[in-house]
């Protein structure tokens, strides 16, 4: 099952990069989100899976596709001048982030406990998510809320000519 979802995720992501048509690329990205949601389910975290689908597939990608349709530019435009350095920067960033993610996962406490997991891992539910956010991560939660609010105000300020 893990392989199925992982393959869905990776194939969706690769197809998105290879696809010249922006709308089809967007749909490939939705496929990737479904693969990730499946991976969350396998980690016994159905809440994250549901939120992944509601927020990313259901709202964000729909809005992105909506905007692309509205702008009516369905084909990727060729670059005005090729900049090979972009590829090198991209590749090295991927390498750095990949190594970083690998390091974090390998060093995490959950992985150290996985061998002696005699007790079944408790599935995540909304109640536990709420407790975690409001007990342990309240500051981060508030900062994110403030950030989103300021982004929203900024978007309105940018688009409205006369306030």
């Amino acid at each position, binding site marked *: 099952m893990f392989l199925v979802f992982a393959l869905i995720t990776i194939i969706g992501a690769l197809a998105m990069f290879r696809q010249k048509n922006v*709308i*089809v690329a967007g*749909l490939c990205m*939705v496929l990737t989100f479904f693969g990730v949601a499946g991976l969350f389910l396998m980690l016994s975290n*159905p*809440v994250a*899976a*549901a*939120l992944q*689908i*509601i927020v990313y*597939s*259901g*709202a964000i990608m*729909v*809005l992105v*596709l*909506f905007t692309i*349709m*509205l702008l009516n530019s369905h084909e990727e435009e060729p670059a005005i001048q090729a900049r090979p350095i972009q590829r090198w920067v991209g590749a090295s960033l991927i390498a750095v982030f990949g190594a970083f993610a690998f390091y974090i996962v390998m060093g995490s406490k959950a992985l150290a406990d996985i061998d002696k997991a005699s007790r079944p891992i408790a*599935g*995540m*539910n*909304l*109640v536990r998510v709420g407790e975690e956010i409001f007990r342990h991560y309240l500051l981060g939660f508030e900062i994110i809320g403030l950030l989103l609010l300021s982004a929203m105000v900024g978007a309105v300020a940018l688009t409205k000519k006369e306030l």
Partner: protein
Amino acid sequence: MESVTHLPGLSAVMIWTLLKVLIVFSAVMGIASLWTWVERRGSAMLQDRIGPNRALLFGRWQLLGLPQLVADGIKFFFKEDQVPPHVTKSLYWLAPVLAFVPALIGFAVIPFGRDFTYKGVPYHLSILEPGNSMGMLFPLAIGAVAVYGILVAAWSSNNKWAILGGMRASAQMVSYEISLGLAVLAIFMKVGGYDPSEIIKDQMASGWFIWRQPLGFLVFFTCMFAESNRLPFDFAEGEAEIVGFHNEYGSMKFALIALSEYGHIITASALIATLYFGGWAVPFMPEAPVLLTILFFLIKLLFFLWVFVWVRWTLPRFRYDQLMFLGWKVLLPISMANLIFNAWLMSRGH
């Protein structure tokens, strides 16, 4: 049952799950096709017309136009399946599936009868067992995905009216999802859980949510019409002005898209019944027999299905800006006020 369980790889639980899937699938499909008939007879009744009465079973029985269903099915199957030359082929074929699958599986989490115990084994009458931690998030997620069928159909048709319909639909569904979510959140808060069976138990203990949260019901009810793209919000289809995401579709592909709309209103009615009208709960009978609870759930479901038909043939369509005004400036503040008011009421008790 005893002998069947001895088959290798088959346990009673698996058979029970398969049975439930079969029952729910055939019930939803049956009601959906039946409702294409109810819609036509109902619209005829509301508009003082006769309605479909020409199809006869074996050339004899009219049966209130019910054979029209069979005639339609045969026609859809045998019609030539034309693919217009200007469409994006792969997505054009994919779109009816994308529309149909969410319409079917949204129902999976809704309990359609009381739990019962047989030979010491508890059985639950919903495809996804309660306590799956997905609960009411599941139909919300499926509803959020349902828009892709419309978007893909609209875009792959490569037709400006189809794209217009698809764009209207996507904007509308995303806008109304927010008020919908806030209305449902108020219920989660009151119940202290988000599993449909918990919500129904809470309603049996302290009254249906239609009495406890009439504002939330109003918002949810309106949003359900927008989410299932029915009149007065049928902007995806816009039947009267040829704008429609399925303009380029014919034969069975169109039938799938049309049936998926009925699938959505069945799920919507089931959600309304479960969240605000006690689900399978029988009034004044907390220990009702299982079959009676299924019957009551069906009655509530069919009633709200009829309301969908009733409203469609009674109200005219909104203008697009009116729809956006209603979604963002009326329903969203109402649902927010509902949420905050309920939170305030609950916080006073502490």
